[in-house]
């Protein structure tokens, strides 16, 4: 039973990783940028969501405002940071993105204080359900529901709408897409908007799960997000989703069996390195 519970916890974390990593994959697929600064978007979403929840007392308000704030910041980062350096070698954008991440960690400290904030009335955290000897709280339930709903919505967008088709055309051949009258710039903004909203929602959920929002919370999850998109094969959406769940479960079992040897983050990256040595282009990567 214990092992089933570990599997469940791993899958719940996997859903959170998926919301974070899908955005990173979208950005990489379109622009070939490792968007480390996604962590900043994630943390901003969490902070704004927390402030809204503590102000209004409504968790729904937290998600709406968190997603809005994140959705505004992501495209802004694209416009101010990435757009001017798109034609430079790839490490330029990566280093600039790392710059945004580390600078904003101190930025959040300046804005919201160093110790982190908690939700005043986190009812989802205290509402628990027991079944078959396992206990989950409502935040964990919502994590899975939100991941399934948002990722399904994305799948519908990508396959069933005009904008989605334009997006896919631009990913596979930007020049050809442009000559068919698709606004490549518009597609890029939509891309960052979707990625950032997902990150913002994930930020509010992780804040609720830990009942703590602090300046450095985005760092580790962004590094893991990068590990996941590399693990899935850079730019591959199905690969990313599979890798998110696999990594969540590996971490969950790893922290039990390898506890004496490695911590949680080290287990995730050890798994990544081993997989890449066997399959250099990731689990579902091309070539």
């Amino acid at each position, binding site marked *: 039973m214990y092992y089933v519970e570990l599997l469940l916890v791993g899958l719940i974390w996997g859903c959170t990783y998926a919301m974070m990593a899908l955005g990173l994959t979208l950005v990489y697929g379109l622009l070939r940028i490792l968007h480390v600064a996604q962590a900043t978007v994630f943390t901003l979403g969490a902070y704004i969501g927390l402030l809204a929840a503590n102000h209004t007392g409504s968790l729904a308000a937290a998600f709406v405002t968190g997603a809005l704030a994140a959705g505004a910041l992501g495209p802004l980062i694209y416009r101010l940071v990435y757009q001017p*350096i798109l034609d430079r070698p790839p490490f330029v954008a990566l280093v600039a993105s790392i710059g945004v991440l580390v600078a904003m960690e101190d930025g959040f400290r300046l804005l919201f204080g160093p110790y982190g904030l908690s939700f005043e009335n986190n009812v989802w955290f205290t509402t628990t359900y027991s079944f078959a000897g396992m206990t989950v709280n409502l935040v964990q339930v919502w994590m899975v529901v939100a991941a399934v709903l948002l990722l399904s919505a994305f799948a519908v967008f990508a396959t069933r709408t005009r904008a989605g088709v334009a997006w896919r055309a631009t990913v596979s051949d930007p020049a050809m897409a442009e000559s068919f009258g698709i606004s490549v710039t518009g597609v890029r903004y939509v891309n960052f908007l979707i990625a950032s909203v997902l990150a913002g929602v994930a930020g509010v959920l992780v804040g609720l799960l830990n009942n703590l929002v602090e300046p450095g919370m985005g760092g580790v999850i962004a590094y893991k997000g990068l590990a996941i998109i590399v693990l899935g094969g850079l730019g591959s959406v199905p690969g990313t989703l599979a890798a998110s769940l696999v990594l969540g479960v590996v971490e969950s079992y790893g922290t039990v069996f390898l506890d004496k040897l490695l911590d*949680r983050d*080290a287990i995730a990256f050890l798994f990544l390195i081993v997989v890449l040595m066997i399959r250099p282009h990731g689990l579902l990567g091309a070539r």
Partner: protein
Amino acid sequence: MDYYLSVATFAALNVILAIGLNLISGFCGQVSLGHAAFYGLGAYAAALASVAGVPFPLAILGGVLVAGVFGIVVGFAALRVREDFLAIVTMGVGFLFLGAVRKQPWLGAEMGIAKIPSPLDKWGYAALAIGAAVALVLLSLHVRRSWMGRAFGAVAQDEDAARTIGIDVAGYKIAAFFIGTAAAGLAGGIYAHMTQLIIPDTFNFIQSITILAMVVIGGIGSTYGVVAGAILLTLMPELFRFINDYKLLVYGALLLLVMRFSPGGLAGMIQRAFGVRLA
């Protein structure tokens, strides 16, 4: 006086670290986001040796070799994965090192290693660190002009083309990783004996990024530029109190601004202003 000596020693250690990373990333074009792990490997190996009673010069040498050997291992990984994949793998190496050290009782876990014997005084460490930094700068300048440096350049520019004209790409990549990580190991050994206390957090991802910031702000690929970058970023927090409190904010903003306006760093700015190319 003591204060100035220790600032000078730290500046020299940062020069050693940055020159090492520049050899890997600047000369040979292999992006590494985990350089602090090798700094840590050198520090832990030298500290353990010293605590066990090994003489100081041998302990330092041990740190250099341990870091260099692990560097060769990562060099082999660089043969398997490239570019963005390699950047993430090297970042992973950093987290793996940290996560492993934190859990090992014989490495002091979270508490680190304390009471490391210290055979030199402040002047001694300053002389050692500055001497080593100068030697490495000369080595770096020499490598750039040598056959090896040109081969590194070819690998950085276009691996497949380099292989076609008969350059041993694998050998040169591993050589770059060995030299660069061994240099980090040297810095680690000196650091461990000087401070007599090492903890895992000194060698975390932020440290890797700080070293990268020195290389990038100085001008990736330029030895003099990187030296300037390392010294500048060591002195800045000492000169301005505000910067010491918000080091990350300043480093991050500098990284962003340099990438945005002058990806060649300080060396690139000098080239544009005076038309002189720094070696």
